[in-house]
């Protein structure tokens, strides 16, 4: 969805106005002031301390539970045979999915010249990194012998052991690892000019820290040239990762022989779902940022949110299509085992989870057909929460496919324990801790990039517009 199409339908070029991506007509200096001000202010707001206190407690509980897990064993969760993977893997896939929006917004939308991305890309990327950190913890700690989890990596060793490259878990290690590295580099590259801005405004020891972080950025022409090239390259590198990470994560399931997992639809369906959930989380966070930092409203505009709502609606429908196609293929395959699995999802003991998933992921996004709803902040906020609940349940439904597989004799129920819930809550604690620290200490909107999409950055006569020509 191009930012211009909504307005370019008007009759003549003369009447065309550049899209208002930033509200309130701030000058470049205002932008710098407003965004840097959040980082620079000395009086940390009370709400931040409260929120951080809650988040840190949750994160602390996360790590204490982890210590108990390491001490006793993975039996503290509800996992059993047949459900060998339980909530840890649900959480892993959930967080990896959340992590998708960042790369999509930064890389893909960048390549597609979607300028509205600039206001949200910084914190979307941050969110990606934090989500991938949360995601990465789960497969690591869910193994039975945590102290040898590094055997998953192909490290030459005296034991002459080598991982099994046929295993999708092996691919996972690489996919998630690559994704995290690329996202981090991409994020940091984008941050460099903004660190320099902060450095230039700071005094005393913060200046030294920002100076260190700015890597000697002087805003010179050649630096900008290299920066633009590097950013483009990184965007190019990151773009296939948007598709690859969740495709590979989906192969954890799709390459197995478990009915309900063993389907070719998984990679695209997982990617769509990931974008869906990622946008949901960006929207949640964006709305919260608007709430706590009113100046941010100028950058994360209702227009931006509306566009995101459209992406959510689109990917929601893709996910819905996948759900129905899974059902259709199960019926069409003529395979009783596969048919059973899908009927069991919809009508078995975990049907409630399936219908939560369908309601949240397929039905709720349909609200966005109505402009009134997709521009209403409360509606968007509630809907985005539902999207995330729905996507968590999607992964729950998928993992819980295990509970009834081939031999009915081994069918069993999975019951989460307090630790299962504790780890999920704890991972949110970690995520929000990191995110709050980010809000406080890192410019949450990419100042340099935002300036690039403001009218001032395009000093032409109103009737002639390079950018418009390119886009048209």
């Amino acid at each position, binding site marked *: 969805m191009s930012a211009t199409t909504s307005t370019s339908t008007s009759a003549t070029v003369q009447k065309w106005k550049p899209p208002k991506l930033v509200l309130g007509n701030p000058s470049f200096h205002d932008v710098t002031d407003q965004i840097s001000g959040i980082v620079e202010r000395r009086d940390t707001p009370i709400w931040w301390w409260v929120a951080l206190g809650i988040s840190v407690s949750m994160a602390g509980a996360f790590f204490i539970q982890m210590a108990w897990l390491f001490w*006793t*064993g*993975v*039996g503290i969760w*509800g*996992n*059993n*045979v*047949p*459900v*060998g*993977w339980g909530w840890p893997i649900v959480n892993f896939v959930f967080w990896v999915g959340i992590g998708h929006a960042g790369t999509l917004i930064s890389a893909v939308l960048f390549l597609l010249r979607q300028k509205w991305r600039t206001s949200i890309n910084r914190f979307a990327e941050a969110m990606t990194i934090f989500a991938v950190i949360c995601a990465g913890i789960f497969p690591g700690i*869910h*193994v*039975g*012998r*945590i102290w*040898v*989890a590094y*055997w*998953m990596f192909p490290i030459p060793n005296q034991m002459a*052991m*080598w*991982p*099994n490259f*046929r*295993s*999708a*878990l*092996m691919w996972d*290690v690489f996919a998630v690892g690559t994704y995290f590295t690329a996202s981090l580099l991409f994020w940091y590259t984008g941050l460099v000019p903004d660190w320099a801005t902060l450095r230039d405004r700071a005094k005393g020891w913060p200046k030294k820290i920002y100076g260190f972080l700015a890597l000697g950025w002087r805003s010179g022409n050649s630096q900008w040239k290299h920066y633009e090239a590097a950013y483009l390259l990184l965007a190019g590198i990151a773009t296939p990762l948007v598709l690859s990470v969740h495709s590979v994560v989906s192969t*954890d399931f799709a*390459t*197995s*022989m*478990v009915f309900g997992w063993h389907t070719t639809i998984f990679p695209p369906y997982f990617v769509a779902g990931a974008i869906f959930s990622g946008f949901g989380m960006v929207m949640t966070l964006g709305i919260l940022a608007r709430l706590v930092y009113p100046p941010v409203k100028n950058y994360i505009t209702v227009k931006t949110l509306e566009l995101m709502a459209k992406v959510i609606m689109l990917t929601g429908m893709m996910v819905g299509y996948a759900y129905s196609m899974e059902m259709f293929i199960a019926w069409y395959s003529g395979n*009783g*085992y596969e048919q*059973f699995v899908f009927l069991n999802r919809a009508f078995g003991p975990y049907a409630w989870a399936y219908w939560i998933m369908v309601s949240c992921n397929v039905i709720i996004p349909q609200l966005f057909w109505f402009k009134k709803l997709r521009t209403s902040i409360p509606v968007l906020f509630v809907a985005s929460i539902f999207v995330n609940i729905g996507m968590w349940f999607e992964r729950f439904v998928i993992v819980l496919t*295990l509970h*009834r*597989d*081939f*031999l*009915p*004799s*081994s*069918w*069993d*129920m999975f*019951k989460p324990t307090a630790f299962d819930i504790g780890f999920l809550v704890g991972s949110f604690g970690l995520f929000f801790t990191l995110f709050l620290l980010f809000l406080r200490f890192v410019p949450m909107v990419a100042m340099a990039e935002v300036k690039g999409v403001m009218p001032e950055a395009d000093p032409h006569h109103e009737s002639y517009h390079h950018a418009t020509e390119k886009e048209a």
Partner: protein
Amino acid sequence: MPSLTNGNGSRPLYWRSEEQLKDSDRFRHWLDHEFPEVEEEANGDNPLKSSVSRRSFLGVMGASMALAGFTGCRKPVEKIVPYVTDPEYRVQGVPRFFATAQPRGTAPLSILVETHQGRPTKVEGNELHPSSGGGVDSFGLASVLDLYDPDRSKYPTQRGARRSMDEFIEFWRELHTGFIETGGEGLAILSETFASPSLWRLREKMRRDLPNARWVAYEPVNTENRDRGLERATGKKVQPVYRYDRAEVVVSIDNDFILSEPDAVRHNGEFGRGRKLTGPDDSMNRLYVVESAMSVTGGKADHRLRLQSHQIGAFLISLTIELEKQGLTIPGSGVIAGRAGEKFETEFAGAIAEDLYRHRGKALVTVGLRQPPAVHALALAINTALGNNGRTVLYREYEDTLPSSLDDLKTLAEDMRGGKVNTLVVFGGDPVYNAPADVRFAPAFAKVENRIHFGGLVNATARASHWHVSRSHFMEAWGDVRATNGILSIIQPQIAPLYDTRGDVEFANLIITGLDTSSYELVRETWFDSLLHGDKERSWQIALHDGLLESSRDNEGGPVVVDGGEVAFLLRHTSLHAQPITDGSYEVVFIPSGTVHDGRYANNAWLVELPDPVTKNTWGNTAVMSTKTAEKLGVGSGDVVAIELNGRTVQLPAYVQPGHADQSITIELGWGQSELGRVAKDSIGVDVYPLRTSETMGFARGATVARTGGYVDLPNTQDHGAMEGRAIVREATMETYKHDTKFAQHMVHVPNLDSLWKEHTYQEGYQWGMAIDLNACTNCNACVTACQSENNIPVVGKDRVRVGREMHWMRMDRYYVGDVEEARVANQPMMCQHCEMAPCEQVCPVNATVHDSEGLNVMTYNRCIGTRYCSNNCPYKVRRFNFFNFTNEFPDSVKMAQNPDVTVRSRGVMEKCTFCLQRINLAKQKAKAEGRTVEDGDFQTACQQACPPNAIVFGNINDPNSEVSKLRKNTRAYGVLEEFNTRPRVLYLAGVLNPNPKLKPVAVEVEPHGTGHGGGHGENGHSGGLDTGHAEPTDAHGDAGH
């Protein structure tokens, strides 16, 4: 202990420490308890976590061994301590097997015990002895765990205080002196049932030396109904010796002969082997079962009739009437003629009668111990009329056997109340817990002046006694037994007593003579005096080696003469009800537990966690009822019901059992002994003995049952009983089999599937494989316990069973087939299938599970990091995960029961069946040393060894002459889920049912395609996989077309 003082008693002359010099309390304590920390550890009363560390345990054991030499000063040396210098023939690390026997009331079981460095670790069947026939059951297998039970009585106690055995002996001698004077006036021994020449000899001695004393026996699960019926009908005290191997038609009248009745191992083997089929022209036996609860035997039936237990006797009358219609004259049946109005289920009875008549002399009607004496007598009459008496069932007079007698128990209790018994020696057993409620044993017992209990565990009787004398495990002392068929065996100790205990024979001798003579001397005395002939020492040695005395084989029993008048008398005086209960009350049936029997194994963790073969419940008992009854009561499995009978109530969770008789509740005996030990304490079982009276030992009428509103999460290992139309357990009737010998392969289409990888060809060396004959398999569970014992499989506890974390590598899958009300059981032993295209191997990220060059799917524990991906991808779900450090939770003594040849798994790793790799390797080493290759018979896997009917066969598939190769070529062979290209190395031989064509057809889960009428399944449905030589479809379609 006094301190070492000088002559005038003030200060020590020589002192060991300052403390002694000061004569401090601490030093005195130290002197009294020389090894206080050891004592504390040995008494460790923390039930779940024994405080004995491995190191200190080994230390104590080492010290005990070292001190063992000094025992020679006190008692004669019997060389059963571990060797100091190895004899030449003994190889370290190679287990040795010794024959012995497990005493079990009237029907002991001959076994071999595997020992490692003098430490018994596993029980196996003794092929030479008919009571075992090479097989063994879970009770026998788990007995080795009892030996190491940390809750065992380790020393005698007097009113709960620790005493030494010498102190008890001293106490007893004092009493005994008095008894010698009075001829044993006021002395009574209440023992368990035994069949032992030595104990019998001692009992005879008592009758001579202490004529006024008495020795009676009581067992809660006893043969009394049968004994009384047979004694009345024959005038002799006889017991039947069934020969299921000779029977072509078996009619079980409430007789669970496969699992819970005496001599079950032998019956199981003989019956199961009688169902083996080499081809469609071979014949197999046919089994009719009439019962109320679904038993293992009922699950194996070709035709099963569910009746309330009290109707079952009447059914036999109905059958008698039908048999007479065939022209048979049944002794004593005259009385039945007048009761013709009672005949019912005539169609079923008629078909059986015809079948029985056709198979005269090759048929067998057996009656379960719950049924009243008259039914047993009538069955004897029927068997006699059919010419089975002396052929398929032999009778043998009780010899060296003291069967249980309720009358004796009642008299004893009466005398106890009347003060006529001043000393009661409870010789094993637990009458306070399990005596019929109306005997009111406990209050009577409390009146006895000297109450002595002899037992291996501190049970209810022990707690109610003054003295509790610790009993040696049968693997710790000498003894002897006589099997039902008269064969004599010596109980040979496998290890020196671990604690301050006495064996059965030693204790009996002590009580009777006041002398603490060793069991070795006592047993040898019995045998050398009267049982051995010729070169006695040599015969003794051979009997020890073989596990039986060859010369005692010659009299396994014969026919008996039936007095029809007496049968008629019994029938006339027994009320048998043809009518089901209609007044809304319920029938309660008391059955021995399939896992803890009458309660004696309630502290045996292997058995307590062993899933019941039919209900799959563990860790407790339930009120088992039919679906209709459950509906009527408004309960589901787990809902607690209150059962009230004769003013007494018990509450226990319901379990809904397909195929159960309506309006009847079956409850297992033996549970609810929470004070027995740490395992029993953890059980959710309920003691139901309070409902049982001497009149209703088998079943009772007139109970009221109501829902209480409570709920218990049952630790059940199999939630789902339906096969969902999947061809997992493949079965067909004999008729289908004859028509289509490859029926099993026609149930599923196996396409031609290839491998992504280069496949191993196994052109040379070994290639292991297994074949399991589902027809011979009787669902007895022995393999499950055998596997547990062999492979150090941990017990996880009820809470972990509830969440699905049981660790059994081998499990018995149980499915119900057909209508819920009239369900049939289809069972299948399931363990790692060692798939050639193993799904687990593909997905392990660290190569921890791989294929070896002999076709085994091997698990490298050290490499496993525990992703559990393999388990997810295993379609058979046979992988087991160590969610915690289960092995570490074992009490130290239990660690002694572990097989040193099998790695103990730590937390966080996956484990599964290895096909007993350690046994394969031992056999390979042996063969290599002898310069040959491994052949059939060199070794058996643990499950194969235990299996009484030899349903499991393992061996080298590369050897075309091996049994397993032949079986895998059987037309009934199929692989479970083979359509998914897993290529399992375990092939199952599909079950064949042998229904009576006169009766309504039995249900099977999946019909073979291609032979059914109108079968639209084309040839392409049978093109690949195992079924390459397929030619029938055209014929089949020809049939279908016309």
